[in-house]
Structure formats: C-alpha cells, structure tokens
C-alpha cells in the first residue's frame, strides 16, 4: 500500500481538531464510573460540571479545553506500507500548522529560550512525531494534544536496586500528593518502570495516554496497576484537588528491562480531558477513531 502524502497532511490537520473536541468513549465511560461511585458532595458537583462540558463541547462544536497542548503524533507503520518517511514527517507538520491557522487554534508552542510564539503550534522538534511498527497492515496515526497542567507534573527518579519496588510505589503516591489539583484530576497516572532514563519517561507518557480499560502487557506491571489505582484513590485529593474519592481514573504502568544497577521510575499524568484521536489508512481509505 502506497500512502498519499497530501492525504497525510489533511488527516494530521483533522486529527488535531477532532482530538480537541470529542473525548474518546473509554474516557467518557471512565467519568460515568467515577460519578457513580463518588461519595463526596463537592466532588460530585465537580464531576457533573466536567460531564456537562463534554456535552457542551459536542453541541457547540467547540474545544473541550482551552489548552491546545503540545501536539504529539504517533505513527504506526504496518506490513507492506510504502511511504517516504521524511515526506511523512513534513506532511504531519504542515497538517498541524494548518489546523492551528485554519480553525483557528491557540498556538501553545514557543521557542524555549526566546519564548517566541510562531502561531503555528510548531517549533524546533515540535510536534514530536514518534514512529513504531506493527505486524498488522495499514498505517495508523494517533494524535495526542498534551495539556501543560498535567505535563508540568512529570517526574523521574533513578532509584537504587536496594530500594526495591517499595521505592517505586512510594514515588507514585508522592507524585500524586505533590500534583494535588494542578494536574486537573481525575487523572490517568502514567508510570514508567525500568529502561534508560529517557525510555523510562517515554514509557510513563505512553502509559498516561493509553486508553482506559487497557492493561499493561507485563503481568507484574498489570498487578501494580490495580494496587496503585486503589491506593492513590485512598488519598482524597479528588477532582480538581478539592477533595473526594475520584483522584485518578486509573494508574497505568509500562515496563522495560533495565540495568542490574538501576531501578528507574517516571511519572507522567494525563488530565481529565484525556484527549486523543486516530486515523487508520488502509487500501479502502481513511477511517477515523480514537
């Protein structure tokens, strides 16, 4: 299958706008689940407003949140896909710029030293475009607008082997405490365990942006997801940090092997506006999803 580059540009544009307007069904279901079990009256009210906002955004065809985030594109290339990688990257970038100009969207991206905003949502190294490969056919582009309230609460700790799994559990609980209401809870708490320092942080981001209801493929990681989800929701931080049971939709864990001398753990959070959109290119055409 040969991928049409102009179509990639159009899809990259469309995905950014879609992601900002419609929450994935797993996140909507997550809200229903929290609202059904929340025991705190203030938190009930807060969750109710968040659920109302999802409806208002759809009814008024507006953005869920003002924060257009840092645009992230994850590309998965399947079997038999023929594409010029450098052209693909440029097309995604053009699509991202067009979404910003044509909708229009607030460009939330500035040069890190001059703080200059080009009003394109792009800059050196941004949008980050990640490539992966799959045994399945077709090409998939996932788009994640990553809001800064949650992104500003990102942590890495190079713990020691002698500190064991306890260091990892303690670190996650302390990150949730330190984040308080700043991350716009209820959040998806993404935890990366193992790898190198950069891989560990990347795992945490992948965990934070994974659909609700999916489990870590590693059984030890999956067991940690359940116990940590229960634990962080005992803290009472609650939606918006105003108190309540609903601190996190879930804790997601991703693992990678690490060095005998290392015990790294990273935490990255996704806010309650856990936005993402995806498009799948097949010989039959483009199909949008989440």
């Amino acid at each position, binding site marked *: 299958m040969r991928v049409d580059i102009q179509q990639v540009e159009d899809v990259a544009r469309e995905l950014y706008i879609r992601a900002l307007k419609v929450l994935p069904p797993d996140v909507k279901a997550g809200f229903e689940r929290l609202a059904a079990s929340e025991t705190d009256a203030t938190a009930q009210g807060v969750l109710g407003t968040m659920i109302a906002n999802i409806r208002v955004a759809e009814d008024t065809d507006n953005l869920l949140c003002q924060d257009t985030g840092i645009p992230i594109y994850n590309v998965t290339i399947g079997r038999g896909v023929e594409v010029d990688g450098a052209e693909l990257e440029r097309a995604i970038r053009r699509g991202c710029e067009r979404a910003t100009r044509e909708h229009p969207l607030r460009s939330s991206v500035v040069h890190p030293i001059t703080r200059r905003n080009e009003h394109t949502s792009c800059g050196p190294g941004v949008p980050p475009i990640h490539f992966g490969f799959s045994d399945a056919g077709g090409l998939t582009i996932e788009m994640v607008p990553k809001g800064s309230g949650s992104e500003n609460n990102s942590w890495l700790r190079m713990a020691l082997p002698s500190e064991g799994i306890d260091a990892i559990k303690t670190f996650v609980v302390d990150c949730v405490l330190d984040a*308080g209401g700043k991350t716009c809870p209820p959040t998806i708490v993404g935890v990366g365990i193992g790898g190198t320092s950069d891989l560990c942080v990347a795992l945490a981001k992948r965990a934070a942006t994974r659909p609700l209801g999916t489990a870590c493929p590693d059984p030890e990681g999956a067991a940690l997801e359940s116990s940590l989800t229960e634990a962080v929701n005992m803290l*009472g931080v609650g939606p918006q940090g105003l108190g309540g049971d609903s601190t996190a939709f879930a804790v997601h864990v991703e693992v990678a092997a690490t060095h005998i001398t290392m015990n790294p753990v990273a935490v990255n959070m996704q806010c309650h506006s856990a936005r993402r959109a995806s498009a799948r290119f097949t010989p039959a055409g483009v199909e949008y999803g989440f």
Partner: protein
Amino acid sequence: MAHHVLQTPITEAQARELRVNDTVTLEGTLFGIRDANQIALFDKGRSTRFDMRGHAAIHTAPNVKKVPPSPEHPTGYAPVCVGTTTSARMERFTGPLMEKLGVRLIVGKGGLGKGSSEAFERLGGAYLAVIGGTAALETTWIEAIEDVDLDDLNPESLWKFRVRGFGPLLVAMDSFGGSLYREVDSKARARRANTLASLGVK
C-alpha cells in the same frame, strides 16, 4: 455557604464577605491574565492602560479568531474557546496584582499557595475556583472580548472580557486565611502512611 452575584468592580468589604465554600457568579468585566503578561508587568516594567481596581482576573490565554471590528467585536477578536489555566505557576504575582493594580478576585484552577493566602488576608481578596478543563462551558459565559492590551504577547495578551452569568465559581481561598487546597492537601498527606501500608511498603 452563601451564593453571591457580584457585579464587578467590587469593594474591599464585598471581597471580605466571601467565605470558603460560598459560591460566586460574576457579572460585567473580567480581565484575563497569564504568565507572559504578568512577567511583562511585574518583572519587565511594562504597564497597562487598563484600570483593574476592584476587578476580577482569570488565569487564561484564550483561543480567539480575528474578525472585522464591529460593535459586537470591538477589538477585532471573537472568542473561540476561553478556559482557565493552572494558577500555581503564577503564585508570586498575586501580591503585586493586588497591591499595584488593585485586583480583588483571582479566578483560576488548582489553587494558589501561602503567599497568595496572606495577600487575600492583608489586602482583602479571594480565589474563585473554576472547574479546570471545562472551557467549552466557560466560553458560553463570555459575551465579548471588549478590549485587549499588551497584544504583542498574543495569545498571552492582557484580555478584557465582558461576562454574563460567569459561574457558579467556588470560593476556595478567602480573606480569613481559609484555603480548601491546604485543607485537602493536609488531609491527603495524613493518609500517606496508611496508603503506603496498603501497598505493603515497609
């Protein structure tokens, strides 16, 4: 737990009536403030032509659309999506905002810290919590962008919105030193030991 409908600007006495857990709906003018415009005003010596005395200021940088100037859109900007950003980054500006510009109410999300609490107590002000991430809803409370200053910082310009029925907002910090965030944080930290024990941490 009273509900207050406040037409801005307000007096010090009105600000001091607000108590944690009260709710507020704002009517009239609301100013939009942000990292870059506060850095410009308080670190780089720039000034604004806006009279913000007695007013409310919200931590925001909106999505806007350029349109031909008209009575409805006097600045040539129409609001697209106006929401609220995390307040904590701008903690150190609460004092100067109140002291130098006379702002009485800060609208934000996620809460502010000790320095802001002290400023509210000393100068007579309060923090009103918006539910963060609910900008589509918030946008329906904005009538127009009435004016804009420091627009070279766009989107982090200093915005002047006209609002109708902006709320209900929760009074989360008041002039009596009350802070829901501090309360929730200390309760949560008190639960840390039990939480870690439930995870089998020794």
